[in-house]
């Protein structure tokens, strides 16, 4: 009997794991990436002649399938340029559930941040992420797993927030309930109370404690604070450090009340304006205002110096 070497075994295992797409409109192109729940493949939509991403469970499992379907349902309600759009859901011939989405090309945020980018550019990327998350919050969805690996930067600078597998749907009024009491919408695969979900370092303390009930938009504010701190690296300006610190306060009540408020502070920082998280004294305020209007001040100073020199040297 012939023994198979390790490389052959790996190839065989990969071949076995590859999805059988017969009976669907998709043709397999190759794997793109994998996570805890499943694998994403690049496939060709043969009907529309375009490449899309296909996310599929690694194993047939009822709970995982419910989660995958739940993620698809959440993605379907989040139509935003910063959130990867869902195209289709279905089931393979082997019974595994899948969904297809836009094939996201580009680089992950951790790869992007590994190169030298000016601080304003990094902050603009952060604002795009915050915009997508704020949109999801407005639709009653918390991401709960914001981290550099879950953000993609496209070749044209587009920023996409990925992996909504741990997302939580907040209480919201049932459609058509005119002003009635809020009713909790439950989706298949909703995470139960006491389940710890997220990534250490980017996860809010209340999320780490496993209390899904106490988690609200401020948990994403915390994660975005951690993301901001990570994105700007070492030695950022004090005002920016203060924004990240406020977002990462231990108690949710001490954080920004919303992602929009947090993003507004970052925007103010970018504009050279005062940020709410960083009280400043008169001197520091004067220095900031002078820095913000340095061109105007330079021109006025040039005028005054010019006038002074004319008076001094010509007497006119």
């Amino acid at each position, binding site marked *: 009997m012939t023994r198979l070497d390790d490389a052959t075994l790996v190839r065989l295992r990969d071949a076995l794991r590859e999805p059988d797409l017969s009976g669907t409109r998709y043709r397999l192109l190759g794997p793109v990436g994998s996570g805890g729940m499943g694998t994403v493949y690049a496939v060709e939509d043969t009907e529309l002649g375009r490449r899309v991403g296909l996310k599929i469970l690694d194993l047939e499992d009822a709970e995982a399938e419910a989660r995958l379907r739940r993620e698809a349902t959440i993605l379907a309600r989040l139509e935003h340029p910063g959130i990867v759009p869902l195209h289709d859901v279905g089931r393979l011939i082997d019974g595994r559930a899948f969904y297809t989405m836009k094939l996201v090309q580009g680089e992950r945020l951790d790869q992007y941040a590994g190169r030298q980018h000016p601080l304003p550019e990094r902050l603009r990327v952060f604002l795009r992420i915050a915009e997508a998350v704020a949109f999801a919050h407005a639709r009653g969805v918390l991401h709960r797993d914001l981290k550099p690996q879950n953000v993609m930067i496209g070749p044209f600078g587009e920023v996409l927030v990925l992996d909504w597998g741990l997302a939580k749907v907040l209480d919201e009024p049932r459609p058509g309930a005119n002003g009635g009491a809020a009713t909790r919408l439950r989706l298949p695969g909703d995470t139960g109370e006491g389940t710890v979900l997220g990534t250490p370092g980017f996860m809010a303390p209340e999320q780490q404690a496993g209390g899904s009930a106490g988690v609200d938009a401020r948990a994403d504010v915390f994660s975005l604070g951690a993301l901001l701190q990570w994105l700007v690296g070492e030695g950022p300006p004090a005002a920016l450090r203060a924004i990240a610190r406020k977002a990462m306060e231990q108690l949710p009540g001490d954080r920004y009340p919303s992602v929009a408020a947090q993003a507004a502070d970052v925007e103010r920082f970018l504009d050279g304006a005062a940020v709410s998280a960083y009280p400043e004294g008169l001197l520091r305020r004067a220095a900031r205002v002078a820095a913000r209007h340095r061109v105007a001040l330079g021109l006025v100073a040039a005028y005054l110096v010019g006038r002074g020199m*004319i*008076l001094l040297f010509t007497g006119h």
Partner: protein
Amino acid sequence: MSRVAVALLVGGTLGILDGMTAWFTPEARPQIVGIVIGSMIKGLIAGVLIGWFAKKVNSLPAGIAFGLGIGLLLAFAVAAMPQPSGKHYYFEIMLPGAIVGAIVGYATQKHRGPVPAKAGI
């Protein structure tokens, strides 16, 4: 407020202030009213041109450069005017005039213009 209106306002105001600096020159004091009015008109003309440029080009460096050029040109025209004394104060008029033009260019480009109305249903 439109960019042209801002340029006119800033140009006219700075023109008045620039003309008032003639008070520091004793021999020019008797003509100060004429100088201030002339300087204001120069500022308004510069404002119209700089405002028109700002409507076409949205660039701070280009706006400052254009303002500098217009200020320099108009100040040269004023300085070249025949004087009773026969003397021309090119440097004394053109240096501040150019910088004032640059300030008008800066202020106009910094102004974002009127906010477009949102479409309603």
